[in-house]
């Protein structure tokens, strides 16, 4: 499966996106770590869907957009993107920060989402189970939080990276600042922008997918999402961490199919 990189323009931004596959339209919203055309979850979803995966500002080699500052801005921006793609009531699939945005989209416009798949979404906070401060983690600390198997995860994260090359390092720092700078608008310092008081508005049929080894947003949050969204089903995946998209991508495809 090959994905084409295309782009569309909203009022605020030029938005690159990946498009591929055949079937019912599905919009995939990536997490704070970004997205590549080689992402296995995209390929699996594209077997049965027309997949559109837009990049948030700051991701996909774009500049951050200063005019987009808060949760409402990014929620409406993402609706602008769906509109720009010419889609009506698509399936929304969002991972982590993308799941938070997808949940917000479904809460502000409940009639415009046909089905909703939230993969380890951010957006809630429990004092008794605080989420680690991902913004102060050093790169070498990340795999331990993101993967069921941190060693294999570390290999995935660093494959092809030339951290000894100063030019590469510079580009890496710039990309990280762009991406995580944008993510900070929704997630820093605590990834809670009031979603809990809006989740009741979601009427789309919803599946929540959670890796049982998620040490970034622990599985207790999956149950909290399930309890807050009427009729939502929770699928808990063994031997997967926060990056369930990389460790068990088939589970996400199955969750989407379960809503068909």
């Amino acid at each position, binding site marked *: 499966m090959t994905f084409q990189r295309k782009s569309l323009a909203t009022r605020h931004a030029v938005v690159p996106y990946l498009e591929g596959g055949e079937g019912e339209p599905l919009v995939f919203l990536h997490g704070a770590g970004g997205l590549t055309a080689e992402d296995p979850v995209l390929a699996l979803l594209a077997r049965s869907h027309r997949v559109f995966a837009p990049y948030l500002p700051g991701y996909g080699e774009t*500049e*951050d957009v*200063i005019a987009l*500052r808060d949760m409402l801005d990014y929620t409406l921006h993402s609706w602008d993107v769906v509109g720009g793609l010419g889609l009506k009531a698509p399936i929304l699939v969002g991972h982590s920060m993308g799941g938070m945005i997808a949940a917000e989209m479904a809460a502000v416009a409940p009639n415009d989402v046909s089905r909703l798949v939230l993969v380890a979404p951010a957006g809630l906070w429990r004092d008794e189970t605080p989420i680690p*401060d991902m*913004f*102060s*983690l*050093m790169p070498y*600390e990340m795999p331990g939080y993101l993967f069921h198997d941190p060693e294999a995860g570390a290999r995935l994260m660093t494959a092809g990276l030339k951290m000894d090359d100063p030019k590469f390092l*510079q580009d890496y*720092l*710039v990309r*990280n*600042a*762009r*991406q*995580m*700078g*944008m*993510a*900070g*608008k929704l997630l*820093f*310092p*605590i990834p809670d922008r009031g979603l809990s008081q809006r989740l009741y508005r979601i009427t789309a049929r919803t599946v929540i997918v959670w890796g049982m080894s998620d040490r970034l947003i622990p599985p207790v949050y999956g149950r909290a999402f399930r309890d807050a969204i009427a009729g939502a089903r929770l699928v808990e995946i063994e031997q997967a961490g926060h990056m369930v998209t990389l460790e068990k991508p088939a589970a996400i495809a199955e969750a989407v199919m379960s809503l068909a």
Partner: protein
Amino acid sequence: MKFTWFNLMPWPYLPDDFRQKHRSVWVDIDQRLFDPVRSHAVYNTYMDLLEYADTLGFDGIGVNEHHQNGYGIMPSPNIIAAGLARRTKNAALVVLGNSIALYNPPVRVAEEFAMLDCISGGRLVAGFPVGTSMDTNYCYGQIPALTREKYAEAHDLIIRAWTERDPFAFNGRYNKLRHVNIWPRPIQQPHPPIHIPGGGSVETYDFCIDNTYSYSYLSFSGYIRAKALMQGYWDRVAARNAPDASPYRAGFAQTICVAETDAEAERLYAEHVHYFYNRCLHVYPGFADAPGYRTIKTIQTGALSQYAPPRGGYAELSWKDLTEGGHVIAGSPETVRQRMEELIKGLNVGHIFCLMHVGNMPADKCMYSSKLFAEKVMPRLRGLLPECDGDGRFWCHPLQARATPGTLPQPYAPRLSQPA
């Protein structure tokens, strides 16, 4: 030249194994290492030293703002400055500064700085740092990518509050205020001089140049390593067609230790310098630079945060490393004079923030070093920038006639009327 005696106010009782046992001196420093009872004497000694510097003839005495920080127990510099305003006579009060994005609403800074200016008789030099990532983002929760916009708005609000004479409405993105009308307002007109501490951001260079503010580089790594950064600033001054390149457009912080001889300096001060550089600066690198805090343009210049770990990892720095590398200017008055001259000419700076109290240095040694600097070094550096001595744009203008604190008259005594 303007010499400001500066005290970061380090906690002097960090344990010997601090670096081994603790991950950071800042943000999540172990609460149990602070002893409030001991801090009573520490604070009072530090304030005494600042007051002592006034009697030695330093042009200014300096304080700054840090939060949750083992080498700066001064989350509110204005509280310290208020005490100093009463107990000092001549020195400028250099508050370097208030992290204006952290005050809600920022008119609080306009008000408190106005109070300091009024109480001190116009001796305030105001500093507006963006704030470090540790303070601003990790301790005070500001969203990194929005910090600069919030800072810029706070700056505009404060300047308007200081300079407009009628109440106005301020419809900012971060501040909605119907009636801005500060009371009191500062003595100095149109407002106190402003210094902006920066760490190499191009945006901060431009902000200083465009507003005629002094750019201060508050580095701990000394004048030799500062060369490239300060040259970047002066190149920018030229490129932006500033009307002049007055050295008072810039300031630099330098750790300085003076003794009778070079050998005595090492004997007296090495342990305290070691305490500061090898214990106090132990910042967890994950806190150095929240993504989005520095602009892309700045990262592309290749400047790294001064709190980022040095290339090749962090090693214990010896007295020799620190003095030869210029982190610390130390030695006899003549050695210090020579190196200070190199600093002033090399960086073209008119303001020196003299870090004369270092780490866990006790008061008596600090006084000895400060007195030698004031008497044997400072006078010989004063003539270095004669052509710019009249440049008053970046320094305070105190009232000529100032009140003397503690001079109340006798209480009013009613005359007893004679019984009829």
